[in-house]
């Protein structure tokens, strides 16, 4: 029997689409719900050269091996989560990777619906985030192109620094409502514009 699956956004009840503006005007913070993306969790030993070579062959490019870095390539972002853990988001080469890693000690798990991403950008984006996150957001460790597993308010987030004033905030589905509301509350004093999250 064919299964019918309906993708339901964990932010649907906020009716964000109805709030989307084309021109954010002078709002200090722009927020968006990113479209759902395929996600794959990869585990393996980054100290094992044969594993890293197979991982690279499966991806078609080198995975990030330095802490808190992201490699983006052709619609696929590979996040370093730990010395033996990565998260792939976007155009995930699942079968290619499974074939490449078949003879290596590894784990591949489809976690596509585990997290969603909230986009936060604008001239006061860093001020908004600084209210909720213990990291030094101005530090070189959080230059554009870097990521960090850290705290958002009382929950967990994977922070992706896209540009000086632009972030993607990956949170687990069940925290999506909490994360959005905390961010919007923090952003309120700077003015908030909800914008389109992209295709």
């Amino acid at each position: 029997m064919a299964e019918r699956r309906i993708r339901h956004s964990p932010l649907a009840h906020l009716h964000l689409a109805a709030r989307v503006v084309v021109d954010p005007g002078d709002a200090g913070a722009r927020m968006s719900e990113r479209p759902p993306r395929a996600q794959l969790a990869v585990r393996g030993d980054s100290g094992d050269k044969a594993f890293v070579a197979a991982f690279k062959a499966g991806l078609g490019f080198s995975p990030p091996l330095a802490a808190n870095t992201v490699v983006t390539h052709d619609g696929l972002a590979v996040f370093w989560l730990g010395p033996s853990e990565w998260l792939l988001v976007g155009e995930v080469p699942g079968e290619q990777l499974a074939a490449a890693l078949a003879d290596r000690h590894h784990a591949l798990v489809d976690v596509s619906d585990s997290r969603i991403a909230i986009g936060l950008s604008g001239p006061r984006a860093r001020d908004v985030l600084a209210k909720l996150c213990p990291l030094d957001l101005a530090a070189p460790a959080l230059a554009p192109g870097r990521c960090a597993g850290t705290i958002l308010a009382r929950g967990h987030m994977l922070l992706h620094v896209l540009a000086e004033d632009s972030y993607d905030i990956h949170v687990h589905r069940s925290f999506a409502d909490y994360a959005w509301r905390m961010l919007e509350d923090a952003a309120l004093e700077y003015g908030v514009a909800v914008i389109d999250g992209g295709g």
Partner: protein
Amino acid sequence: MLLIDCPWCGPRDEVEFSCGGEAHIVRPPEPANLSDAEWGDYVFMRQNRKGVHYERWCHGHGCGRWFNVARDTVSHQVLAVYAMGEAPPEV
């Protein structure tokens, strides 16, 4: 608030970590052969030192890795960070 130097992620705020208690406690190889007192000693008894304390921490909100920390329980100063399985450093 502690600033803990994660061996992988660098200095991060204490709230990102969880403490796993005293380090270097070895599980007895044959628990069935122990007396209740010996098993109780392994499970419950800790040094609770004033001064240098060797303890385990996990960077749960970051890289998810466990490692050891030498911390002064009076000043809360983190004196050393070292890998799991490594002998405690002189501090």
